[in-house]
Structures are given as C-alpha cells and as structure tokens.
C-alpha cells in the first residue's frame, strides 16, 4: 500500500483543490464575493491560492532523486 501513498495523496489534494472552487462559490450569503485586498475571495482562491497550492503539491508528491521505491 505504501507504494502509491504519496502520489495518490498528491492527486487527491489536487482534486480537492479543484473541488474547493465550486464549494466556495456555493457558500451562503455570497461569502465568496467578499473582497479582501481588492479581490473577491473566490478570485483569490481560484486565481491565486489554488494554483500555487497545486504547484506546491506537485513538487512535494514527486519523489526526490534519493527516494527509494517505497516512497513512490
């Protein structure tokens, strides 16, 4: 089971990041439209936070050169 843990987790995090967008936009009272530093929460999430988090996730889940097959 350890064989796929890191990669599977990485893919799951990416899918969760995607799922966060509709969830945020579905919040009641148009919470996603609340502006923080000029940008609405939905645009902060979809345009900045989620893409950067996706990038970091992709970097973290890929094993480094010294990782054995167990960390794949």
């Amino acid at each position, binding site marked *: 089971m350890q064989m796929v843990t890191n*990669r599977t987790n990485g893919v799951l995090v990416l899918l969760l990041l*995607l799922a966060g967008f509709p969830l945020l936009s579905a919040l009641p009272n148009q919470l996603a*439209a609340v502006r923080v*530093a*000029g940008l*609405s929460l*939905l645009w902060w999430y*979809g*345009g900045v936070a989620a893409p950067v988090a996706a990038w970091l996730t*992709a970097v973290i889940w890929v094993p480094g050169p010294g990782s054995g097959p167990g960390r794949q």
Partner: protein
Amino acid sequence: MTSAVGLLGVWLTPAVWLGMSALILDGGPDGLWVGLALVCAPLVALGMGSRPPAPLAEPARPDREPLFNVVILLVTVGVLLWANIILAGDVAAWLGAPRWQGIALTAAAGWLLTAWRGCRRILTPLLLLALIGVSVPLVQAARAVGAGPLGAWERVASEPAFRFPAASRWVTAGRDLRMARGRTPITFDEEHRITAPKGGTLRARTVDGNRIADIEWALTPGQSVTLRPGDQVERTSVLRIRFEAGKRVPGAPQTGIAWAAGRAGDWARRAALLFTILAGALALLRSGMAGPISRGVAAAVGGGLVVGFLLAQAWAVYSVLGAPDLFLGGVTPERLVELPGLAFAGSPWRRPLQAALLGAGLAGYLASSVALRERLGALDRTGGGEIGYDLGLWAGVFGVVAAASLWPVDPWRLTVLALGGAAAALSPAVLWPPPSERPAAGTVAGLVGLAVFAALAVAAGLRAGSGEILLAYPAAVAVPAGAAVLWVARRGARRAKAVE
C-alpha cells in the same frame, strides 16, 4: 519527451492560453474555473500516469507503441495545430489583414521547422520569447493605467456598466459585423442607433411587446437604424456597422460586480468539462510515456502553468479595462491580441509592443508545434522519434489543417474536441494498463471509447443547440465505456491466472 518545456509546449498552446484569457473575460468565475482546471489537470495527469502498475496486471510495455495509439495521437496533434492555425487566421482578420495570410504564415513556419532536426533546442528560447513578448506589454499597460493587477481587477469589478469608449473602432470607423463571432447573441439592453458607413443589409430580430419580427433593412451608406432594448442583430448581416459611444456593449455583463460574481452555476456542465480536460491531459501527456517524471520537471511544469495562468488573468483584466467593447457578442480569443486601447492610446510604443505581442504568439505557436511533434515522436521508441520529423507526413498534416482553417471554427471548441477524442481513445489504457496476456485489450477499449465519443459528437452536431451535457462533452461517457472494456479484460486475465 519528459522535459518541462516540452510538456508546457504541448499543453499551453497559444489557443489554450488565449482561450483561457477569453474565457475568464467572457464568464468571470466560469472562465477562472476552466483556467484552474487547465493548471491542475496536467499535474494530476503527471501524477496519476506515473503510478506503478497494479501487481496483478503486469502491463504490456512493447518496444513499439500500438499503431492505434500513434494514429490517435497524430490526429489529436493535428486538431490542436488546427485550432492554433485557425486562431492565427482570426488574429490576422481582426487586425485587418486577409485571413489566409495568418494561416499561410503559421502553417508554413510550422512545417519548415520539421526540416530542422535540432529544433528541439530552441524550445526554451521560444517559450521565453513568448513569455517576454506578453509580459512587456502587460507591464506597460499597468504603468499606463496606474494600477497593478489587483487594482485593475478591482476597477473592472467595480464598473457600473461596460460602455463603448469613444476611441473604439466599433465607434470610429466601424467593423464588419461578422467579426463579432462570440457565443453570446448581440442583444441590446438600451436604445441604440447603429450606422452602416458603407451601407449593406442588416438583419435583426425585433421585439415589440409580445410580437417578435425578423426584419431586413437595406441601408444606404451612412444610414442609421435605431434598435430598442431586447432587439437582436443577426451576425449573418454582411455590412460594416458603427455603434454609439457611451452606450452599453451588447452581450456584456450588466456591471463589473455581475462579471466578478459570474453566472448561476451549471456545475454538471463544468464537471463534465473538467473530466474532459483531466482525461485529455492523461491521454496527451502520459500515453506511451514510460517512467515517472522528476521533481525538477514537476516543479518547472507547475511553475510554468501557474505563471501562464496568472498572465492570462492579468491580460484579460487589462484588456477589458482598456476596451470594454471586447464583450460585444461574447469574447473571442483573437480580440485579445490587440493591445489594450486605453493603456496605449496615442502611445509611441503601441506599434513596437503590438509587434512584440504578435511575435510572442508566433514564438508560442512554433514552440507548441515542435513540442507536439516531439510528443508524437516519443511514441516511436524504436525509430528514434522519426515520425516527428517526417517531412512528407507533416506537409500533409499542415496542408490539410491550413485548408481546413479557412473556415472559421471556435479554436477553444476544437481544443476541447481534441482533448475529448484523445481521452476517449487513450486515457483508459493509461490509467489501467491492459494485462500482458491481453495486450490488444487497450486498443479494443480505445476503439469502444472512440466509437462512443464519435457517436455522441455526431449526435451533438445533428442536435446543435440542444445544450445536453453529455452531447457537449462526450468524453464523460466514452472514457467510462473504454474503461469498462479494460475492466472486463483484466478480470478475465485474473481468472485465467487463477485457473492456471
């Protein structure tokens, strides 16, 4: 073909990048969602595709890729090139040149590069050139309007209405109505007098109470027609028209707040599009590719995607800040190649920056054409990627694609079609490799997926405008159909093993 620039070149073609920008402008959060999907999908694909195979189903890893996979990827690459060459034709037409010139230039340049076997070496410089060519006008636009990206977004999102600026070409000289090729009908929100400077025939659907009438006016040069709220102009009208300055742009969101909030959610449709993009990324980026990617490649691909997405957002915002008339009848990508009017009105930098921007588009296209051919060549493991440099083959591909590009088609739709077709035919076998005892199962699954995809795509064509999700995104049905075939094959192989 697991270099980061190669993967970025395959995925972020100019049609995708500009399409992303146009979608953000057109749909607000809808487009933002598509952009986020375009960033995450390759990362998911690179992660999922490099997963070790299940122990029970040893995958067949032949030296030669099945012919089926090669043909499907060749067609996919052809359609992606088609989308980009169409965009080049659209850009040429929008900037006032004959459409065929943009098509001929890009098709010839793409084909000529196939003769140079060392062209993969210029992938990185080409992508850097594209990056610089887009970034410099953006910085200049930010300086000219005196607002950073956040400030520019806030200004767009606070607009009380999107109105024709006095300097708009739709107001000064007028444009051919057929140039407004967006997806939104040109419906007027307020009384608006439109003028035909050179005359022509204007077709419109007018609303008078409950009565709807289709009217055709034969206008003499300089003659005007007044349209009322609810009236709709037909795009088939062959004439140049001028709009009034200060009037609302037909097809634009009511206000900036409405644009930033987006339309009511049709999440089933958005999920189907996400599925198509995800499965398409798997097929395009991982099919036939052996071995996992390195951390450096993942970091570079992810970084490139995020930078591309941020630039696409900034480009969309600065463009509309300078030219709200971009919204006329729905935003199309070629309109975004014109420098933001407000930021560059009267600027001596306008021409050089416009040239730099067009150069960036060409560089991006050439990088993508090289990367796409290299991607196909990666399937040709025994031939050393020869297929990517076959002059005769690519002369045929570029020739057919250039001829087909003479008819305007939405480049984004073509891109989604290419991703969907590749997804239907290739992604099931990428996710669940066929067992070594039944290597043909991958091809059978691909054929089944492709047949379902083709049937639904044809049905969508016959029932144009029906708006059904599964017809709009047939990969959502075709991929599970192909996967079911593989599941049966793997189950059969497992049973046969158990019996032995």
